[in-house]
């Protein structure tokens, strides 16, 4: 394997525009050299942004690094480029299973099975999900990945998330996201402290009224309408937004997620919460 990596590195150095980066990154990933695998995948992705296999590969490395939010985005992008990409479908199924959305996990696997009915790994994953067991983490086939033709035309719509649960598909939906009404009552999501205890109600009670106070402060300062409140704690970060006039959305992450990235995640969660609230 070490020779493979060296040989592939040499090939890539000779022709940086080639698709060898797919095999090199996968080889590094299999060796557990995730940082290097990530760097190679990212460099390749910058050169081939419309290659579904590149997004799939990057998502697999991110999954190995437990960065599920970004992995979700990458597989989502792979499917936008190539709607029949079974690697991306399997990857999303895996992530849906992780957030407890068995229905979405199964439907993604079923779609993958329709596309590749003879793939035993998909059959096995479907059986596992139906039996309540986690499908195996997605991995590349033993053979080198076959690049999917690049699509430079109009991007196809991504599959819609199941919004019967407010934050379906977002990492931390049941431990780091909570939607409240103006009185501090929980509408969806849940919060757990670092010890794993459910602190949803306590935090909700303290946050009730923040919306009015933030609005008064912004108005007094002539700042217009408030759009968000970010706070950095010693053990974690938090972002508060208001998807509607009366609702408050709280997103909590550990300090490994910087405030800027937390704000991006919160924007996505806010949009989902807004759509969910509009349907009620």
């Amino acid at each position: 394997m070490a020779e493979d990596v060296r040989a592939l590195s040499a090939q890539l150095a000779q022709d940086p525009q080639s698709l060898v980066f797919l095999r090199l990154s996968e080889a590094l990933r299999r060796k557990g050299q995730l940082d290097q695998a990530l760097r190679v995948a990212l460099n390749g992705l910058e050169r081939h942004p419309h290659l579904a296999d590149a997004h799939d590969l990057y998502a697999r490395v991110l999954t190995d690094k437990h960065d599920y939010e970004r992995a979700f985005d990458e597989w989502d992008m792979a499917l936008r480029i190539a709607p029949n990409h079974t690697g991306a479908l399997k990857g999303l199924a895996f992530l849906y299973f992780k957030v407890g959305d068995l229905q979405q996990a199964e439907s993604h696997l079923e779609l993958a099975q329709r596309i590749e009915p003879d793939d035993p790994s998909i059959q096995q994953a479907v059986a596992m999900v139906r039996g309540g067991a986690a499908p195996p983490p997605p991995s590349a086939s033993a053979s080198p990945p076959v690049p999917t033709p690049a699509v430079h035309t109009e991007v196809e719509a991504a599959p819609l998330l199941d919004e019967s649960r407010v934050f379906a598909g977002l990492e931390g939906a049941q431990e780091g996201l909570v939607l409240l009404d103006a009185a501090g009552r929980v509408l969806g999501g849940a919060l757990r402290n670092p010890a794993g205890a459910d602190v949803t109600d306590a935090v909700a009670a303290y946050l009730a009224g923040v919306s009015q106070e933030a609005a008064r402060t912004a108005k007094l300062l002539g700042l217009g309408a408030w759009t968000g409140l970010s706070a950095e704690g010693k053990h974690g970060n938090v972002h508060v937004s208001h998807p509607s006039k009366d609702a408050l959305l709280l997103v909590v992450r550990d300090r490994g997620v910087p405030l800027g990235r937390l704000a991006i995640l919160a924007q996505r969660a806010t949009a989902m919460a807004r759509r969910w609230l509009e349907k009620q």
Partner: protein
Amino acid sequence: MNHTLDLVTRVRGVRGAMLVSADDGLVVAEQLMEGIKGSAVAALAASLAGRLRRAMEAAGLGASVFWHLQADQGTLLVVPAASGMLVVAVAEPDVNIGLVRLELLRAGEAIA
């Protein structure tokens, strides 16, 4: 105290800065642009800081190190200092948040 606030107000886009007593919301020192009601802002900032502190402690996130309120036409940035004071800045919406945060933290250390 005013020298401490200078650290913050010299950042481009900052409209003013204050030191506020976190317990009672009273202004300890201020360098604000005309038109900003320092005493009212101090009271609300302290109240908001108190709510956030309690919520963050309940969530197991520990004490708040820095927070900022984003609004359409500006932002309010706050660092709770060890001395029981809040270092507060009011800034334009396109201010360099990272830079103001650093200066607020430095100011907070200076008054600790």
